[in-house]
């Protein structure tokens, strides 16, 4: 069975998700089968192919610089898990 090249612990950290050792191991095994398919992709010759930027090509889609009504202040905060006055409240930042 092919190996999974993913350093799952590192990637999970980047994605801010904590996995148990069991989950990491299980995911690793599950990914390895997918990587069998992905390896076939690596074997294709794509040297003269450009990457699809968008499947239906559009460009220069812009909007005029006009103010439109925004959310009512209370509506904006209505789903906030925690708030203090007009602010969204969350725990301190520890880097």
């Amino acid at each position, binding site marked *: 069975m092919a190996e999974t090249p993913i350093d799952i612990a590192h990637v999970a950290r980047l*994605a*801010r998700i904590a996995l148990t050792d069991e989950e990491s191991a299980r995911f690793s095994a599950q990914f390895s089968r997918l990587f069998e398919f992905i390896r076939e992709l690596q074997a294709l010759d794509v040297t003269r192919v450009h990457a699809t930027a968008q499947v239906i090509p559009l460009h220069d889609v812009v909007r005029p610089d006009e103010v439109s009504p925004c959310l009512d202040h209370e509506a904006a905060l209505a*789903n906030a898990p925690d708030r203090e006055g007009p602010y969204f409240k969350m725990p301190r930042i520890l880097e």
Partner: protein
Amino acid sequence: MKTGHEIHDAIVARKLSAVEAVSAALGAVTAAEPMLKAYLTLTPERALERAKAIDQRIARGENPGLLAGVPVAVKDLFCTAGVRTTSGSKILENFIPPYSATVVERLEGAGAVIVGKTNMDEFAMGSSTENSAFYPTRNPWDGEGVPGGSSGGSAATVGARGVPIALGTDTGGSIREPASFCNVVGVKPTYGRVSRYGIVAFASSLDQAGPLTLDVRDSADTLEVIAGHDPMDSTSVDVPVPHYAASLRADLRGVRCGVVREFEEALKSDAKMTALFQSAYRVLEELGAQLVPVSLPHAKYGLATYYLIAPAECSSNLARYDGARYGLRVKGDDVFSMFEATRTAGFGAEVKRRIILGTYALSSGYYDAYYVRAQKVRTLMKQDFDEAFERCDVIACPPVSCPPFELGAKTQDPVAMYLMDYFTIPMSLAGLPAMSVPAGFVDDLPVGLQIVAPAFEEGRMLGVAHAYEQATRWAWQREPMIGSAAGGVR
């Protein structure tokens, strides 16, 4: 069973009131729900209020729209202002959006009445609705099988004749596969045909909203209502929306219908499935179509390509779910611990898998080898279709490799589930319109026929599907196990 256009015609002719139609639908849905579990939220009061308003407008001689009074359901990833919208996830379990998706506004603007939000695989990731964080939905045809996914709830409620029209989304097959499994019509439009604004995003370059309906005519009308340029979506295309129903035709004379060599090969080992599709192609021929063999040589790379691009985009789209501004929050001593605790508790296993896969595919040192390469193979797959459509007007092929499987049958091996998308992924990657229309039964379980057209040729696609539908009438031939055959409206 009453289709949407039949209900609409009766309402406009004042033979039926919107309140009656919606009440009957709510009755049918509620009766089926304990077994079916197609919904995450039902909105009876809201629905009846709107139905009443429609009736008042009709009484005043107004025309409330193409879908006036028709009861509909929408997948729970369409933001619906004031109505809980979960995207099938615990992380949004109590999220009430302050705004509605553009397609919801257009549906309601055409007079449709939303009776509830349907169940789905979490964040649209899955092919069976078993990844819903809440509960699985059952297939209305046998009660033991999956309805397909990720738009399983929408397909099931239409299949069970609760409502005639439901909205779903299709990223790699999530409308077409459940439509096939539930014996209903399901349409994925051309990428950019329908606005994505207000649809909880999974994979931005692939997601498209579309209808699941009892018949092709309703899909045509619903598509006409929801399609069209939206200034709130930079990727929505400014191309006029035709009256799709005008393209519905009775025969297929002059139509060149491509049959995909590689797909036939893939199903070869399954005699029953092969027989079903062979007879479907014969019907097309009998209707006057000329069958043309075509090739999609890069179709086999679809799985790997899709499972690099979609997770990459979703890993970024789902970063916003962190407990800070809305949704679930799990306590943490500091904000980054809170992010991690929330996401760990709030996301299911499949979502976590795809976020990790996607984060990896974009990460430093791997971006070119995986994400960029996948986007290049995507170009090759699109070119396959461009070449095929030089020789045919539409492509007819399977949307699935098998009839609906049992609940739990594929949950142990994610890749086995991913393989369900084999026949639907290439059209998604190429951004082409594709649909599934009921095509018969294998072991008494429904199987659909997929029709694919060139970009923005939904009319042509619907026309072919309609001809096939009228010649075979599979949707009318049997009744589902769960749900009233009379479609809730007698």
